[in-house]
């Protein structure tokens, strides 16, 4: 995504900064408070599209296969992501089920679906009335995805249980971990200013 010339204000200190045009690999930071304002990513839109598609496929796998299985004293319990939410709900912890599934599956999935739709539209130069609301929805959701935090949570849980029982890691565990990496890479390739500049160019 190229960054074209634009005068913006730093969101953290309100200093007016004239940006760009930036070459791929270049970044612009606020001269007063050091906040990263924008970063130009080479082939940003294609990169975001590729990584978002990969993330979506991995997330689908993570929701379709067993995450982990626990074996102790001849008994076995298999855990899957959708069943986790269902069991929490059945135990009267519906709020927790919605919160957890929301921040680790639903919000990331919705963000990725929006990113795929946006980047395909922008790459093909097709203006559509939903581009702007889709972009706003994307940035409204972005603080609430906690994919990488969940991956750490899984690792901590594993360490807590290994001495209790035998734990088998399922396909979904590896898929979710790979999904976490791809999801972070997707967001790292996405630059807010250049995405909005592309949307503006496409719709005007």
């Amino acid at each position, binding site marked *: 995504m190229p960054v074209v010339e634009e005068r913006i204000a730093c969101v953290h200190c309100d200093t007016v900064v004239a940006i760009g045009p930036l070459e791929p690999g270049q970044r612009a930071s606020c001269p007063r408070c050091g906040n990263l304002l924008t970063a130009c990513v080479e082939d940003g839109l294609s990169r975001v599209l590729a990584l978002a598609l990969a993330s979506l496929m991995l997330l689908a796998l993570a929701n379709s296969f067993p995450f982990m299985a*626990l074996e*102790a004293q001849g008994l076995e319990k298999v855990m899957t992501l959708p069943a986790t939410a269902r069991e929490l709900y059945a135990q009267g912890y519906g709020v927790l089920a919605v919160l*957890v599934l929301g921040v680790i599956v639903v919000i990331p999935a919705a963000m990725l679906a929006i990113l795929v739709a946006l980047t395909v539209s922008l790459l093909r130069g097709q203006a559509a009335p939903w581009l702007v609301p889709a972009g706003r929805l994307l940035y409204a959701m972005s603080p609430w995805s906690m994919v990488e935090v969940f991956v750490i949570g899984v690792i901590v849980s594993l360490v807590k249980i290994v001495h209790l029982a035998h734990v088998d890691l399922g396909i979904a565990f590896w898929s979710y971990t790979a999904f976490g990496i791809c999801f972070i890479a997707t967001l790292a390739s996405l630059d807010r200013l250049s995405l909005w500049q592309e949307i503006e160019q496409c719709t005007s």
Partner: protein
Amino acid sequence: MHELSAFPAGSAAAQGLASCHVCYKLAPASSGDCPRCGAALHLRIRDSLQKSFALLVTATILYIPANLLPIMITAQLGTEIESTILGGVILLWEMESYPVASVIFIASVMVPVGKMLALYWLCWSVARGHESSRQQRTRLYRWTEFIGRWSMVDVFVVTILVALIHLGGVMMITPGTASIAFGGVVIVTMLAAESFDPRLIWDQLREGEDG
């Protein structure tokens, strides 16, 4: 409230320009909505300090049941053991799982407490017109914004243990009320950080001062 001369020279607000919080477009504040993305334009977040402070107080109150009530209940062969966040950390430490005990202690105790203290200090310093380094305070704000979600680790751990350890009558883990209270602390502190407008730190910049 919006006397343009009240804003420091060089700031967008001094020229009557508002920065869109969604798409970064710089547009006259009088235009109401952002010309690029349609989000409402404000020179500053409205009642930022009040909102942020109110949410901080809410988070502080929620943090009490989050620590006093059990976060999970382990039932093993007829006996039930309730464990609190700190109890879990101490147990892990005694079992010599030092790295995991540290991760949970940092994520569930140090991060939320540090974050709330940092935001209290930011609100207080802006309300009092404090002169301490504006760059450092802005960096502190960015830290609170970045670190907030990481406190969810313990809630996720409880969720996973509840889902996984469910072996008939042999052993079973159920969530405790503190898990909801603690999830609430994380969400409310994230909202408090979002309501705090770091530009207020720089609005008190005096002529000749460089922050």
